[in-house]
Every structure is written in structure tokens, then in C-alpha cells.
């Protein structure tokens, strides 16, 4: 038995890397042509959970809601963090869920994981939806303390507490790093700036051991995988999918092009005389008096 059970909730997302992403001529994402991958923020969450494995021997479970192909994201995350358990919540009835209805599924899934979960890790936000709401909403449904924008954390196994550092960035203020102490269980949404540090030889040895194990396990990820449909999960159908979503997408439109705010002078970048003119104008702008 491990002293610490952690969970990660992840998402299969469009792969925005060049070569895999496809844009329509109008600049919007071509979803049909774009490949999918483990979301970059989900990957960061997996790295944060892996820190718990290396430092505290934590047992890790990963959960995701998505179509059957989302099992690939579980495999990718397992490869990062050497998870013991993979959960895929997959049912056509879950499709079209907004963040509240997604949180209901994730919360129910987390409660079905092996062991009593002490920490849940989630990404900062999805690269496609970009709401950043699903994590905190799942936390509240679980009754876990929510800690957002976490850049670093450690666990006191004896006191059963977490000490986390989190970023607070507010309009017009310098950024603040807050150190917060909270009793377990907690739900951590991991800031993109998170980076794990393994300083001692012992930690590095442990890191290498688990990395090897992660490779072996993820090569056989199906062995660790459990797939749940709505019935197996035991969710109330009124609270999931489209049926359980308070919000709907009413319409999608192109953002109308505003009036031109400036009248650009168009210069030819291959013409030295034009470039000379451009630089002269830049110079003028920089030397102008600023009247405030």
C-alpha cells in the first residue's frame, strides 16, 4: 500500500504542432485534418504527478473522458508518469458535454479509482476549449480543496498536507508567488511554468527506475486500462453529456473585420529604397516627443 494515491485527469486534444495541425484558408482550425495528441497541459500535469511517484512512491491513476481513441492519450500520459491504472470514460451520451457535465463524469470516475485519492492533478486548460473551468469544477464536486496555477509543490506525508506555490497574475499588478498549505485531499491545476526538480542522487536513481518501468508499462497499456460507459460508471444520465449541460453553443461566426485602425503605407521588402524609407519612419517614430 502506498501512502499517497494520486490521480491525473487528462484530455486528448488537437495537435497544434506544425505538420500535424491543419488550418482552413480563413485561419480557423481544420479539425478533420488535424491529428490528435495528449494535450500539452495534460502532459505537464502528468509530469507533476510523476514527481509524487519519484519522491513519495505514489500510486498513480489517470482518467480521461473521450471517444475510444482517447485511450492513446492515456498511453502517452502513462509513459510520462508510470501510472498503475488507466480509466477511459467513453459513451456517446457524454458527447457535447460542457464543463459542468464533464466535471460530473470525471468526479464519478475519480471516486472509482483504486485507493482513496489524495491529490488530483489537471492541466491548466485545454488547448482547444481553453476554458480552464473543468479542473476547478471537478474539484468542487469532489469536495477537494482547489489550488490553481501551481508551479511547485511538496507533500508532508506525516501531517497529510500539501505545501504548494502558486502564481497570481492580475491586470496592472506585478505577479505574486503565494505559498499555500492545505490538508489533503487537494486538487491541483498545474501552471505551464511547473518544472520538477530532482536534486539528489537517490532521487535521480528512483527517477530512472520509474522511467524504465513507465516505458514497459505503457508498451502494454491495455493491461492497465479500464473502459467505463455511463452505466458502468453509474452516473445519473440527467447530469452528463448534452442533457446535463447548462450551456449551449448558440452560434459560431467569423469575427467581423473591424474598420482599419491605421492606413498602412505598403512598402516592397525586396526594394532597398523602400526599406530605407521604412527605417527612416521608424527612426522618426522613436525620436518623436512623447506628449502625455
Amino acid at each position, binding site marked *: 500500500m502506498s501512502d499517497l494515491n494520486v490521480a491525473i485527469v487528462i484530455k486528448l486534444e488537437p495537435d497544434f*504542432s*506544425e505538420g500535424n495541425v491543419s*488550418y482552413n484558408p480563413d*485561419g*480557423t482550425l481544420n479539425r478533420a485534418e488535424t491529428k490528435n495528441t495528449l494535450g*500539452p497541459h495534460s502532459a505537464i500535469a502528468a509530469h507533476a504527478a510523476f514527481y509524487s511517484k519519484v519522491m513519495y512512491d505514489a500510486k498513480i491513476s489517470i482518467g480521461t473522458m473521450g471517444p475510444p481513441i482517447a485511450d492513446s492519450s492515456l498511453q502517452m500520459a502513462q509513459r510520462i508518469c508510470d501510472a498503475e491504472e488507466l480509466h477511459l470514460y467513453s459513451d456517446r451520451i457524454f458527447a457535447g458535454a460542457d464543463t*459542468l457535465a464533464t466535471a460530473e463524469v470525471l468526479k464519478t470516475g475519480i471516486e472509482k479509482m483504486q485507493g482513496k485519492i489524495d491529490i488530483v492533478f489537471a492541466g491548466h486548460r485545454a488547448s482547444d476549449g*481553453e*476554458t*480552464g*473551468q*473543468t*479542473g*476547478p*469544477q471537478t*474539484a*468542487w464536486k469532489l469536495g477537494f*480543496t*482547489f489550488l*490553481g496555477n501551481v508551479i511547485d509543490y511538496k507533500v508532508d506525508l506525516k501531517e497529510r498536507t500539501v505545501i504548494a506555490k502558486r502564481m497570481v*497574475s*492580475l*491586470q*496592472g*499588478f*506585478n*505577479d505574486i508567488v*503565494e*505559498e*499555500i*498549505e*492545505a490538508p489533503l485531499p487537494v486538487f491541483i491545476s498545474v501552471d505551464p511554468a511547473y518544472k520538477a526538480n530532482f536534486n539528489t542522487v537517490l532521487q535521480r536513481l528512483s527517477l530512472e527506475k520509474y522511467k524504465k518501468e513507465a516505458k514497459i508499462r505503457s508498451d502494454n497499456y491495455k493491461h492497465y486500462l479500464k473502459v467505463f460507459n455511463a452505466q458502468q460508471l453509474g452516473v445519473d444520465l440527467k447530469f452528463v453529456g448534452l*442533457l446535463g449541460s*447548462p*450551456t*449551449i*453553443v*448558440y452560434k*459560431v*461566426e*467569423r469575427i467581423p*473585420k473591424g*474598420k*482599419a*485602425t*491605421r492606413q*498602412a503605407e505598403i*512598402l*516592397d*521588402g*525586396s526594394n532597398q529604397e523602400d*526599406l*530605407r524609407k*521604412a527605417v527612416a519612419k*521608424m527612426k522618426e*517614430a*522613436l*525620436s*518623436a516627443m*512623447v506628449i502625455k
Partner: protein
Amino acid sequence: MSDNNYQHLYVVIEVQDDKIVPVSLEMLGEARRLIDSFNKKYQSNEKVVAILLGHNIKEICNTLIEYGADVIVYADSHELKNYRNNIYTKTISQIAQDEKLSAQISPSSKFKKPRYMFFAADSIGRHLSSTVLVALDSGLASDINKLEISDLKITHQHKTDGKPVTYEKTLEMYRPDFSGFLWTTILCLDNKNPQIERDYHPQSCSIIPGVFEPIAPDKGRKGPIIEYMPTFDQNDLRVKILSRQVIRSGVDFDSYKTVVSFGRGIKDAPEQNIKLVEQLAKTLNAEIGVSLPISKKPFVVSENVSSKYMISDRVIGTSGRRISPMLYVAVGISGAMQHVVGMQDSRFIVAINPDENSPIKDECDVFIKGRMEDVIPKLVEEIKQQSLAVNA
């Protein structure tokens, strides 16, 4: 689920170190405009209610009235000095559901739930809105930059059982997508299908800082300022803030007169092209910014370059920084609205782009047509000749 069960627009105010975070006044401004036209259109008398949590904040209440709030509900406690999600969520949802408070806000009416609720889309409001709306069991849209209230005829498989139903006084919440080219309108609608009838109020959203204008403050405005006494769960108080440390970002746009930014136009040879951008920035003594897509690390480059440039700290735009340097040079940036909002206040804007039809053309003073690979080396030479670099 009659319309009579809801009223008012609640705005959750943010305060940091005894100062109002500007987005709070921007939200009040938009709330004022919306409710004024709402009251005219529906001949009603609904209010803008500001919710303020903190410690020693009474002074701030008057300012909020001047900036458009009709009523202030504030909770003042040393426990609320800094944001902690659990006690903030509980206090706000208690305020939203408190019958006595409701009677104080509108003495003549029976208890009503908030109709609409606004939060800031920042590192406090984004999470706070999420948890409050779970506590209130309603829907939430994030990162909104346009709002309207209208009566909409909706036909929806679940919500209306496939039949057309008119939803009155519905908040249309416009959200720019990640590309910056599409607007998605989100609605939060009650389920009116008799089999699954559910009430989804308040209709709520988080609002992008820097989008809406505050109203001009009016010292003559008056309104009730109501204190709410929150009760805290002792277990929640075990979450403690041990320390707070102010840090300055490693990327300091404000100390530079010039900013050079790059976008997806580097795609043909990312590593080399970022080097070109570096060269240009060095010649101009400029800080380097990026467009939002770059922070998603769309290109394979060395770890050094990636961790230095493909980071959110450098993003210029609605989901990053808003800057106003003397000179802004946009290299390979198409000019999505999301980016333009962050740089449009620059004094002079130069764009380097091969496509004359890209939207950036309408947002710049000089448009240098050409591929960055060809233009930057020549431009750098020309700058050196005219010795343009100005010390920051």
C-alpha cells in the same frame, strides 16, 4: 421556472493589496450599460450588485458605486484578505442565495436568485467563477469579450424537447476562440423540456481584462452598501497562505521603447527565423514578444529557444500582455483580433508579412511586403546604416 424568480446582475469585484483590479471597473461599466438598456427595454428596475470580499475594504465600496454599481454587498474579514478558493466560493454562493440580503437589495420583492453574474477571466476569477457556478449548479462561459441581452427563439433537442421556445432576457456571451478568428456565442439556458426540467440561473461568465470601458466615475451616485457576515467552516481555514512574494516577470516589455514580435510566419525554418528575429531585436534594442499560437509550441526547435520564447510570459494579446511601446514590429503575424488588442496602442507599428491581405495590414503604419527571411537581413543592414538603435 418563471422569469420572476431571478433578478439583478451581480459583479464579483477583485481587490489586491487594497486596490481595485482594473477589470472590476471594466465589468461594472459593461454591467451598467447592459442593465440600463435592460430596464428600458423591459420596463423594470433591476440593479447592478457588486460583491466585494476582503479586509478593510469599506472605502472601496463608494468607489464601486461611483463606477456604476447600484448596490454593494461586502464581506469584511481578515480571513478574506487574500483569495482562498474554498472560503471565497462559499461566501459568494451564500451571498447569492441569502434571502435576507435579497430583501435588503429589493425590499418589495420575494427572494430571487441572481439573474446574471460576472467574474474576471484572470488567475483568481477564472477558478472562482468555476467553483461558484458548481456551488450554484448553473452554467458558465469563459473569456468573454462581447455581451448582449435578447429574447431568443430556441429549438433544442434536449432543452426544449425539439419544440421552439422563446427564452426571454437571455445573456448572449461572445467568446473569441483560440485562433482569434471565430466568435462562439454561448448561452446558458434552463431545461424547459418537461421531462428534465431544470433551472440554470444565474447565467454567468468570466470577462477578459482590458476589453470593456469603465464608465466615467460619478461622485453624485448613491446606493446602499450592505455588510454580509460570512460564517466559515473551521476545516476550510486549515488552508493557509504562508507567504506572498512579489516577482517581476523576466520579460519586461515596459522598459523597452521597441518590441519585436513574431508569429506563425516563422514556420518555414523556425529555429533560423527566430535567430533572425533576435538579430532584428538586438539591432533595435527591443524586447521580443510572440503571438498566442507560438506559446503553444507549434514548432520543433531547440529546448533553449523553446523555453526562452515559446512561453506565455511573452504573449501579446488578450490572453497575454497589453503593451504600448513607441515602436512595434510584427514579424510573420497575421493580426488576429486576439493579438491586435495587445499591441494596438503602440505609437508606431511596422508589419513584415508576405500576404497583403492579412488583417495586420489594417493595424499598422508601415507594411513591408515580403518574407521575413528576405526582409530582415536587409532591414538590419539599413538600420545599422541609419544607426537607429535607441537606448531604452
